[in-house]
């Protein structure tokens, strides 16, 4: 555990010693702010129109849950923004070590490959947690000026967290495959995009294939969390993807010793 923490600490310091952390955080905060503002304006407009219509026609139309709708759209949008951001968190974690030769230090130190992998992974997850935490700034606006239901927001964040930890594990694995962090970043992004698009591909397939491909879609599993439903099968999906990613990372790091 001590070894894992030492690596977590080093990686977090390394994030903030390079421009990557600041660029990723700045862009993310900026984008999430802009999107929140856009969503806010649209939903409020929609609600106003809706209210005017029901006044005019006297018909008791369904009232709109303004804060709920805003938070749902916001969290959904965040998942797309994260698609672009997550590969940047993991792309350098192993590729840079390989390029600089520092991997030789880690793999000849009296620590296990598992500790190296977990240290790096937990650092990436911690950084991701910081990113998610920043989105509470716009979200808190909802609590200041409205009374949104806690449930869907918390479950939505849980969903985003699971979604992130799964994709970070995939990205971590990909960064073990190359010495070039740009290649790792693009590969991770491509892989995540593929996992995202499989259900689009699924449209034209047979029923069984469609079901399988739709199950593999990483975004499909997020919907229910955002709508406030936490289902075991979705939790298991993300955790399995995370475990698979970490397992592959571990094997890949172990095999670096073999391949040299």
């Amino acid at each position, binding site marked *: 555990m001590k070894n894992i923490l030492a690596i977590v600490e*080093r990686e977090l310091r390394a994030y903030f*010693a390079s421009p990557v952390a600041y660029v990723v955080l700045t862009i993310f905060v900026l984008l999430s702010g802009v999107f929140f503002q856009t969503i806010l304006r649209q939903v409020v407009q929609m609600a106003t129109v809706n209210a005017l219509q029901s006044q005019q026609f006297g018909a008791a139309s369904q009232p709109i849950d303004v804060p709920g709708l805003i938070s749902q759209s916001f969290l959904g949008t965040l998942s797309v923004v994260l698609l672009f951001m997550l590969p940047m968190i993991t792309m350098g974690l192993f590729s840079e070590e390989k390029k600089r*030769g520092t991997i030789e230090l880690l793999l000849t130190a009296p620590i296990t490959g598992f500790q190296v992998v977990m240290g790096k992974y937990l650092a990436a997850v911690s950084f991701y947690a910081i990113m998610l935490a920043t989105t509470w700034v716009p979200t808190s606006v909802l609590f200041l000026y409205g009374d949104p239901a806690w449930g869907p927001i918390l479950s939505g964040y849980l969903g985003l967290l699971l979604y992130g930890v799964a994709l970070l594990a995939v990205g971590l694995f990909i960064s073990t495959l190359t010495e070039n962090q740009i290649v790792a970043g693009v590969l991770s992004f491509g892989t995540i995009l593929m996992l995202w698009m499989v259900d689009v591909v699924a449209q034209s397939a047979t029923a069984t294939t469609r079901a399988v491909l739709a199950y593999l879609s990483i975004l499909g599993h997020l919907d229910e969390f955002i709508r406030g439903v936490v289902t075991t099968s979705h939790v298991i999906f993300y955790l399995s993807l995370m475990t698979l990613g970490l397992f592959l990372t571990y094997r890949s790091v172990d095999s670096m010793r073999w391949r040299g």
Partner: protein
Amino acid sequence: MISVQNLTKRYDTTTAIADVSFSVEAGEVLGFLGPNGAGKTTMMRAITGFLPPSAGRITVDGFDVFEDPLEVRSRIGYLPESPPLYPEMTVEGYLRFVAKIKGVARIDIADEVTRVMDTARALDVAHRINGRLSKGYKQRVGLAQALLNDPPVLILDEPTVGLDPNQIHEVRELIKEWSGDHTVILSTHILPEVEQTCSRVVIIDRGRIIAMDTPENLVHQLKGAELTLVEVAGPLDDILERFRAMDGVVSARDMGSSDARHRIQVETDLRVDIRPRLARTIVEGGWGLFEMQSSRMSLEDIFIKLTTSDAEASPVHAEDVAVAPEPTSGNTEDFGDSENDTEADA
């Protein structure tokens, strides 16, 4: 301390190390000497467990590299070919991190980091960023890192490469300091380095050990005779006669004369240092002594002889090494001289 048995490392098509066995006693400084690409780095990586061998067994302090990798790694301080530094960290921060993963107790970390920085003469850059250090300081920080937690075994891959003459001298002095309480394996393709620092030399060429002994024994084994070159003024025939009559002298030859000075090459039996008696003879004869030089066959001559002796040997290897001698070391001079002399003799 370290035992390597039948170590073989194959890559897809090539064999980097072929059935190599040797052992290193505690406190020894063993030098791997060989041309670039001979398999020195591969061999060191195999001992650290970074690169598992295709076949063979390696033990360090009784622990198998394969079965107890953590025990082995905790006993080895390793300086890879290029110092494994994180460029964005400060020297001190970096060493603190390495100390942690090497298992230095939390309360001892500060002292231990200061100790290794002091030993490796890197204290003055403690707060500098690794990435901005000069090559020499990077190498020192790499050495400091290897010393953390005081491992009994140090494996140093080309510790002096890229350093300037003063730094090379310093690093060699450091290695000499550490020998004794540490077992050191170092690799180099610079020949005077092994002559100066190592108690035993392993000459490697294309993945095979072609010679292993102390530097002195290697020199003696491969050399037929000891040659001494003297420059004397006096009657040539008389001088040659007197020299030839001396005990232990095999031959004395005139190598050329000018201005009544004669260059005479005296060949003696192995391990006989004729110089004091030669000087006395010259003084007793009332002649003038201008120069006297023992032309020992250097490790370089041996190395070239060994690595090019078999039919397949490509001359490129020998040339590489012949060009490689660092221009810096104090004995480059007699190095070059001796080479010429032996060649002239042959």
